């Protein structure tokens, strides 16, 4: 409208010369124009005299003179002009002319953007949009509005006299303004000069799962996650930038809303639906603020907080079915019969002269055959190919299709002073292995409120309760064994797991009974054993923190926070009479047995920080000073009970004999830290941090460790000399250096430990003796990671971002045993003496907002290389691990190389044996059917010295890539991940499936390729032999060039197709948003690996990485889901 567009200068006014009062003048103006005045009478002396001695052309000139004379400040907003008194005596008059502008800010889809910021350029005037994206602000009519929102490109909008505007923001694909959580504060991607990689809520949601670590797989460069979780709710092994230790744990630190969890904690406690963002800090410089806990990287998790004035309710539900993806490819019953026959015949032929495979059982016995050289009588019908015989698939019986449900509700909102969010999550997941399941309940509460002008107060609270059914990872006989491991392969397909005539419904003893006369495998039915016994766990955890902050002057925030964690686990196992005991019939079994154990952990965390942000011209500073104290204590108690009178009371109370064991431990840490972030004109960025940690884990003579860091960044594209162009739109160089520590050295490693058994018979009466056995190490400390990081960030076309990092991390002070002078009473002492290096490249590439017609396209890709080298073992030449030295760790090589013989052939006849023996001696054996091992040292003697390095488990390359498509309301995303340059040694393959002992079932790779002079003369694998393994055969059970497997894979990790309902439909149902989708996890894996899961190669011991034992398949989950937002 006209009046609004009219400025004071263009408003005409006419007043006669003469004497007036101020009141007269104002009345005149109000009469002659559309403007009216507002003022406080206490400020404006209306009766004051004012004489007009000139003619005014415009209202502006009048007010100008009035201001000069009377020290009035005029502030025009639309049609009203506010008058106030200029407090300080000023020469300059003040007339401010403003427009009340209102408008709405929309996102790229035309949806309102609540919480967007609108600021008048060059001023501090501004506001934010409400929940509907609306705003109102009074600005100078010639102002330019800067409209910004996290994740969107900031837009400049000149007001040009408009009072109503609609502003659309475009997604900032470079995400430079994205908030990055850096530990005791936040920054933006643009200002960070270290190596931080992030994921937001949307990306996390693309993988539908109960645990967030699954969602990260393949998404972030430098972050390698093995998908080796076993039971629903188990965590995966996370490694950031390579192996961090030789002998100790190397878990990254996980910090949830500022609370650092104990390293290696269960991540099941955090519902991925509650996560707003995940930031992974990879380089030492950025992580150094966490000092001695940061050497293995830090994962910062931020949960959702309330925003928007309206109460918002978010509902998410997903349901699906999951099943296994891998397989052992076990023989069916007809082929298994042939395999067992061959193994038994070969043994018979080899051990007795002048015998034939067609000899009857009586003839064989007469010839002195061992029972393992007899044909299993019950396999004869199979060998005769009689149709319709039992052909039971044990893998199918042990694995199942499981139902998965995930439901989540979140209520959030904010008022003037307070924002809040509260959630409840429920997960019910049947695992893919029988008896493995979980019911999980999570809550998250977040509240921030202003208390008056200076104080803020907030609470974060996370709660978790789960009831879990577990499968045992071990191979113990009494308690539920691992059904998906060795037991399954021990079972013969001639016997079913089930028996309707048995009251239990299971066929418990069939294989034992049938195989006993033949000394063949007498494994008990693992399906029955798992189903009839119990292995349950209840877990409860709550943690959180409360803070109070005080801002005495602008941008100086003093904050004190108090955190706590309580965790309790209760594990309950019971093995009834019916189950348990390899080789034994029920009637021969030991008593039933039960076990109960509980553990409790309690942490407290007290932190005080001062944070001050200030600018001096173009120099911006952020300074942090802080202090932190953390204490953690742990207790556990475990009771085993034996001889229960019956299986009715299945708890310890029912047992007649018990044994108990208990443990407790504690550690504390006191820290001081500081950091300065500096930037100049958005072009140069510098930061430095220092932290001192005192830890009870460190030796008393080395109690405090200091960790410092430095980083620098330079945004070339913000320089005036940088050519304006549309191609290379952003360029930044980064460098960082820092030191961090790994304090996962055990709580009491510095102390001597006591060994018992040093007894003495005083005059024939035995007394127990005990004495310190390991040496105290009072200078024992953390393992140190010193890392250099070089990075480049490039932006192309404002749409594509490329980040490249090169890192070199030198890990020194690694804990190893060092021989000490024996006059101290000790042989060796744990010392910080080893040294290792990790180096590699990381590439992250992403692009979005490629629009082709209505189709919008985005992509992401990342690739990481890691090269590991042992620099020093502190004097030792090499370290071995695993039975028969399966793994070797040696200076100059990478950590944990598989070590064994290279197979170059197979001896297939007596002539070949004779020829071979004429050339080579061997400390092993050289018989028909034996492998020929490479004579590595060329001394014509085949012995242990001929073993070679067979590769390691650390992948040379890990990568991931994905694509996002959107069309109208539809969206589709696909994500892949993979590894290259990795080998593994699989216990199942090497010791059972392809060993050919004819004692367990085998796989088709072995069955089709074992040598037989008649039926398979081209076979290259040693033939089955049920009895009388040769030394060479036994050696081939350890790593060899045949059984060390290529563990690379490429996996279609997730596919999700969604549909967002259009606003018309939404309005009809009073919904804010609604999305329905179908999702698939792990749809397909491309791999040459001959086992269940190539990702299972981490036992927790860095020295035998790549030893795959007892791992289950990665599940494939197909699900449908719905997300609803209500207001």
């Amino acid at each position, binding site marked *: 409208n006209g009046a609004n567009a009219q400025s004071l200068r263009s408003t005409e006014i006419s007043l006669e010369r003469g004497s007036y009062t101020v009141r007269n003048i104002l009345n005149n103006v109000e009469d002659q124009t559309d403007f009216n005045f507002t003022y406080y009478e206490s400020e404006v002396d209306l009766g004051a005299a004012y004489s007009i001695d000139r003619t005014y052309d415009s209202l502006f000139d009048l007010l100008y003179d009035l201001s000069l004379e009377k020290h009035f400040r005029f502030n025009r907003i639309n049609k009203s002009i506010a008058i106030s008194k200029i407090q300080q005596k000023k020469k300059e008059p003040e007339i401010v002319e403003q427009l009340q502008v209102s408008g709405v800010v929309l996102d790229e889809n035309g949806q309102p953007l609540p919480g967007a910021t609108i600021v008048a350029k060059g001023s501090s005037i501004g506001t934010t949009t409400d929940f509907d994206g609306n705003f109102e602000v009074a600005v100078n009519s010639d102002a330019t509005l800067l409209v910004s929102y996290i994740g969107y490109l900031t837009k400049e909008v000149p007001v040009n006299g408009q009072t109503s505007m609609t502003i659309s923001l475009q997604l900032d694909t470079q995400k430079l303004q994205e908030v990055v959580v850096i530990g005791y504060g936040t920054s933006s991607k643009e200002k960070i000069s270290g190596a931080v990689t992030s994921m937001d809520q949307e990306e996390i949601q693309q993988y539908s799962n109960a645990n967030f670590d699954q969602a990260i797989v393949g998404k972030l460069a430098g972050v390698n996650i093995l998908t080796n979780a076993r039971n629903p709710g188990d965590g995966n092994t996370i490694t950031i930038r390579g192996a961090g230790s030789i002998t100790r744990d190397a878990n990254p630190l996980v910090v949830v809303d500022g609370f650092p969890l104990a390293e290696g904690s269960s991540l099941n406690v955090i519902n991925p639906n509650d996560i707003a963002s995940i930031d992974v800090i990879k380089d030492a410089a950025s992580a150094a603020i966490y000092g001695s806990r940061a050497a293995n990287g830090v994962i910062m998790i931020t949960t959702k907080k309330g925003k928007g004035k309206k109460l918002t309710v978010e509902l998410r539900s997903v349901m699906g079915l999951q099943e296994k993806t891998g397989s052992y490819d076990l023989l069916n019953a007809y082929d298994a019969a042939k395999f067992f026959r061959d193994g038994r015949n070969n043994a018979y032929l080899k051990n007795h002269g002048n015998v034939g495979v067609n000899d009857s059982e009586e003839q064989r016995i007469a010839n002195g055959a061992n029972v393992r050289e007899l044909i299993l009588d019950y396999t004869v019908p199979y060998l005769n190919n009689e149709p319709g015989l039992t052909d039971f698939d044990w893998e199918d019986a042990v694995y199942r299709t499981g139902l998965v449900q995930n439901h989540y509700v979140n209520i959030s909102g904010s008022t003037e002073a307070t924002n809040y969010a509260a959630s409840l999550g429920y997960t019910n997941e049947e695992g893919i292995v029988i008896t493995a399941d979980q019911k999980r309940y999570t809550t998250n509460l977040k509240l921030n409120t202003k208390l008056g002008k200076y104080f803020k107060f907030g609470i974060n609270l996370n709660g978790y309760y789960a009831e879990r059914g577990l499968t045992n990872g071990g191979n113990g006989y009494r308690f539920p064994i691992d059904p998906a491991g060795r037991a399954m392969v021990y079972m013969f397909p001639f016997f079913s797991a089930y028996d309707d005539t048995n009251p239990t419904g299971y066929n418990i003893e069939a294989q034992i009974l049938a195989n006993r006369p033949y000394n063949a495998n007498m494994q008990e039915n693992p399906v029955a054993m798992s189903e009839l016994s119990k292995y349950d766990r209840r877990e409860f955890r709550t943690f959180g923190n409360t803070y109070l902050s005080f801002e005495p002057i602008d941008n100086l925030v003093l904050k004190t926070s108090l955190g706590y964690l309580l965790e309790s686990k209760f594990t309950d196992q019971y093995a009834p009479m019916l189950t348990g005991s390899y080789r034994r019939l029920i009637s021969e079994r030991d008593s039933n047995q039960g076990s109960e154990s509980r553990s409790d952990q309690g942490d407290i965390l007290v932190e005080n920080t001062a944070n001050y942000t200030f600018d001096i011209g173009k120099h911006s500073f952020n300074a942090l000073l802080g202090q932190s104290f953390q204490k953690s204590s742990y207790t556990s108690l475990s009771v085993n009970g034996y001889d229960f009178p019956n299986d009715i009371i299945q708890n310890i109370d029912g047992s007649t004999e018990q044994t108990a064991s208990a443990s407790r431990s504690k550690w504390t840490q006191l820290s001081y830290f500081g950091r300065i972030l500096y930037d100049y004109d958005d072009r140069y960025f510098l930061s430095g941090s220092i932290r001192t940690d005192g830890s009870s884990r460190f030796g008393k003579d080395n109690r405090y460790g200091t960790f410092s860091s430095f980083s620098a960044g330079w945004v070339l594209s913000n320089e005036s000399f940088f050519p304006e162009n549309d191609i290379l739109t952003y360029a930044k160089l980064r460098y960082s250096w820092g030191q961090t520590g790994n304090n996962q050295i055990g709580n009491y490693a510095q102390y001597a430990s006591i060994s018992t058994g040093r007894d003495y*018979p005083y005059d024939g009466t035995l007394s127990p*003796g005990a*004495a310190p056995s390991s040496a105290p190490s*009072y200078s024992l400390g953390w393992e140190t990671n010193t890392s250099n990081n070089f990075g480049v960030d490039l932006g192309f076309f404002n749409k594509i971002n490329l980040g490249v990092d090169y890192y070199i991390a030198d890990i020194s002070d690694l804990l190893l045993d060092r*021989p*000490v*002078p024996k006059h101290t*009473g000790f*042989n060796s002492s744990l010392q910080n003496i080893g040294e290792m290096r990790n180096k590699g490249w990381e590439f992250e590439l992403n692009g979005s907002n490629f629009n082709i017609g209505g189709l919008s396209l985005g992509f992401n890709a990342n690739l990481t290389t890691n090269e590991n080298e042992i620099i020093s073992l502190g004097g030792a030449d090499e370290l071995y691990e695993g039975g028969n030295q399966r793994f070797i760790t040696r200076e100059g090589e990478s950590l944990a190389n598989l070590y064994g013989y290279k197979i170059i052939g197979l001896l297939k006849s007596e002539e070949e044996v004779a020829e071979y023996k004429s050339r080579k001696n061997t400390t092993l054996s050289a018989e028909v059917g034996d492998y020929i091992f490479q004579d590595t040292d060329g001394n014509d003697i085949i012995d242990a010295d001929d073993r070679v390095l067979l590769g390691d488990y650390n992948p040379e390359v890990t990568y991931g890539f994905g694509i996002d498509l959107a069309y109208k309301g539809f969206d589709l995303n696909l994500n892949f991940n993979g590894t290259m340059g990795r080998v593994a040694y699989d216990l199942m393959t090497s010791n059972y499936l392809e060993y050919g002992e004819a004692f367990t079932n085998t796989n088709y790779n072995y069955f089709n390729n074992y040598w037989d002079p008649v039926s398979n003369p081209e076979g290259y694998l040693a033939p089955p032999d049920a009895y009388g393994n040769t030394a060479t055969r036994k050696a081939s059970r350890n790593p060899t060039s045949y059984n060390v497997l290529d563990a690379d894979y490429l996996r279609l990790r997730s596919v999700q197709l969604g549909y967002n309902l259009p606003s018309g439909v939404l309005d009809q149902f009073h919904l804010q948003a609604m999305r329905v989708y179908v999702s698939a996890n792990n749809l397909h894996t491309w791999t040459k690996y001959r086992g269940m899961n190539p990702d299972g190669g981490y036992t927790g011991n860095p020295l035998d990485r790549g030893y795959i034992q007892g791992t289950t398949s990665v599940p494939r989950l197909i699900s449908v889901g719905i997300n609803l937002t209500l207001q």
Partner: protein
Amino acid sequence: ENYYSTQENVESTVTATYNELQALYDYYMILWGEIPSDNAYIQAPNSNGGARPLEDFSWTSTSGFVGSIWENSYEGIFYANTVLSVIDDVLYDSESLKNIRIGEMKFIRGFLYDNLTTIYGDVPLVLTIDDPTYAFDDARTPKTEIYAQIETDLLDAIELLPSSNSAGRPNAYAARAILAKHYMKTRDFDKAEAQLQIIVSSGKYSLVDIDALFGVENEGNDEDVFSIQYASNLDGMSEGSEYYYMFTQPDDQGGLGAMAMESSLYELYAADDLRKGLVTESSNVYYINKWTPSPNNSTDDGGDNHFVVRYADVLLLYAECLNENNKIAAAATYLNMVRNRANLDDTTASGQSDMRSAIAMERRLELAGEGHRWFDLLRTGKALETMNAFFQNDGSKITVEAYRLLSPLPQAEVDITKMEQNPGY
């Protein structure tokens, strides 16, 4: 450190200290005392557990026994130091028991340092507990300083230990005996005589019949001043000794014959010397039979205790002191007590020098195979003279050089500390 909050736990380490003596005396300390001397030799081929260098004086700083005696001795000292450093702060049932334990630990520490200085000469003196990596800078402590500590420890032990017998543990008399022997090593025969006189005049000990002296059934007899305890069939057969298995003639018990008596010694026994019955001849090899076979199928589960000091030893030491102090007639009295028990007539020796030889001879005959002879030769300064004469008679080409009177330090220790190796090695 938290472990040592109860009496029971401190007691466990006291016991571990004795356990260390058991390991020390199960084999090498006996061989070291006998094999280099003119008493005994390694008879069985390939069965000497690496001890053969003791016989031909070819040991080196990497010989196994050089390292293991060092290691076991210092472990024992470490445990004793551990107990001594914590026991003050632990509540014991009785203060007197606590004092006895302090006495026992000082006794063992003094005893072990006396052994160490005899074998290695100067050794590092360790009396406290610390981070072992601080020991890389350690050097050898002069013998005289250690002697002062040995004297202090044993005098303290004499004060603290009871005079009554306590199963398997030392009493004050045992401490006096060890101290006397130490004084004799330093040729302080006055002080030694005084200590031994107290033992002898106490009337607490007496000589028993030869056939009631050795054997499991005779353990704890009136002659036992201090012995290291072994027992069969205890603790998974881990508390027995190897003596029978190692030192006696090969037989169906699995005896190995790692130690046989020189025939020249055997010939010194008079025809009717009762102690001759403790020696068995088999194919012209003489085996000392002071030990009992294991009652079970484990060769190292013999039950015999090992006499560190027995009364006959005390009497002969006393005689030696008296003789050195020119009380020759008195010396004869105590020498004769030992001779008479063996069914021998009184000594005919007269004059200090003759008497000295007679006493030395009697020690050989009386204590053969019990791990004393080589240390006696070192103590009396007769090692070179005796052994070179012996080898000359023997027709062997071995010449014992003076540097052999001290063992080398274990090479691994020299390599990683500031300790200097003994000359000659």
